[in-house]
């Protein structure tokens, strides 16, 4: 028995040596990786990533983290929230499946965002155990999000397609800039929600893929190499740049999403918790949807 265990361990060790020697980063590919750095014919992604990460990324993240909430704070103080009576007529719009999928994504985001920020401002937190834990949580909580992102994309895809009404919505920014309750002719989702849907879904998938590239380092993607002509290390640089830039959009719109549901429209968050949407809220903010529901006799 012991002999087999020893043999098994030896095989594992040899396999890991072979794996390491075969690595696209430290093995034979190393020459391509070195040539890829700032050479005439290359995309100069090494110097580009270094410059962006050294000078800009952390500051832009700080700007988004402080700027977006500041704008909404001013909005709350000047324009104020929209309040609807939540006592009478309600329509059951989000079933248990919708809510579960949404809540799993929500919890993942609530871990992914703060941990991401702890990594970005790692020197502020002093590095070491805390930041390392944040990095590991950041990776672990990608898994639940990765599981629900496709079902979430499919269940709301039809409602999230843009239409002509959305142009009007953008012209007046959904009526959120005025204190009075204007009737907005939006369907189940307004243009703002649609925008968040696409950033969360497409941006989310981009974040998962680029994050996975960065986590595994040695993934083999012959197809990507062939199409782009980039070496392994350059693909990792692209992943790191994409992950950060997409991060700005996801963070900004996530804060917007939370502000809208928790503060700007008082009590709107309850509709994704209980599944019920309130009549007047739907009538004013999603009039096209309201008419459809009314015709079907659902109010």
């Amino acid at each position, binding site marked *: 028995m012991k002999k087999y265990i020893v043999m098994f361990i030896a095989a594992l060790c040899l396999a890991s040596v072979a794996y390491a020697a075969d690595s696209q980063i430290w093995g034979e590919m190393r020459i391509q990786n*070195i040539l890829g750095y700032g050479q005439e014919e290359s995309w100069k992604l090494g110097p580009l990533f270094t410059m962006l990460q050294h000078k800009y990324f952390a500051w832009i993240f700080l700007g988004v983290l402080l700027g977006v909430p500041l704008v909404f704070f001013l909005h709350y103080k000047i324009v104020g929230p929209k309040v609807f009576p939540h006592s009478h007529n309600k329509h059951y719009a989000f079933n248990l499946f919708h809510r579960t999928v949404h809540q799993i994504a929500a919890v993942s985001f609530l871990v992914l965002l703060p941990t991401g920020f702890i990594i970005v401002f790692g020197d502020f937190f002093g590095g070491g155990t805390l930041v390392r834990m944040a990095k590991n949580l950041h990776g672990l909580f990608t898994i639940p999000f990765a599981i629900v992102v496709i079902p979430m994309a499919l269940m709301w895809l039809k409602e999230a397609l843009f239409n002509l009404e959305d142009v009007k919505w953008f012209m007046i920014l959904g009526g959120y800039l005025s204190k009075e309750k204007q009737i907005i002719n939006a369907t189940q989702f307004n243009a703002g929600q649609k925008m968040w849907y696409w950033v969360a879904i497409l941006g989310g998938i981009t974040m998962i893929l680029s994050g996975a590239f960065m986590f595994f380092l040695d993934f083999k993607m012959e197809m990507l190499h062939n199409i782009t002509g980039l070496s392994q290390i350059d693909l990792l640089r692209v992943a790191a740049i994409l992950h950060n830039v997409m991060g700005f959009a996801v963070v900004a719109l996530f804060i917007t999403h939370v502000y809208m549901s928790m503060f700007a429209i008082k009590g709107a968050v309850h509709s994704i918790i209980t599944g019920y949407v309130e009549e007047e809220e739907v009538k004013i903010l999603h009039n096209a949807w309201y008419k459809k529901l009314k015709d079907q006799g659902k109010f």
Partner: protein
Amino acid sequence: MSRMKFFCDDNRCIECFACSVACAEAHELPTGISRRKVITLFDGIEGKEVSTSIACMHCTDAPCEQVCPVDCFYIREDGIVLHDKEKCIGCGYCLYACPFGAPQFPRDGAFGAKGAMDKCTMCAGGPLETNSEKERHLYGQNRIAEGRVPMCAAVCSTNALLVGDAESVSTIYRKRVAGRGKGA
């Protein structure tokens, strides 16, 4: 203050891998990590084949130091680029920034998570107490503190791998080029 530099004379490198093996052995590196690596260009093409040994080049404007989100790098007064493994979170940004692929990561965490970054220290250890048990365990031998040259250069049988302050490395190489009349 002089700046410490590595230089590999590719006219002399015979691709024996002694530097790579000696480094891994001296510092008891984990499996799969080689801080120093010998690479060969134009392999097998007569007259063009050339071998050289590379590791961390201890850059003057080290990009790894610029991108590290936890700021774990520090550059000594003599130009040796070192980092703090206890601060490092294993994010890999230094690897993306490095032109030489020097930073490496042992896969020692759960689910294959990257451990703390490992790279050539020019045998100068780390931020811990010089020659302490812990420094040796985390960063390998601190030969510079003992006044000895790094292991890789010490074992180089053809003296291809030069190390020392930039001035003297340059003087030696210039003498060699003048002597053989080519190769600069």
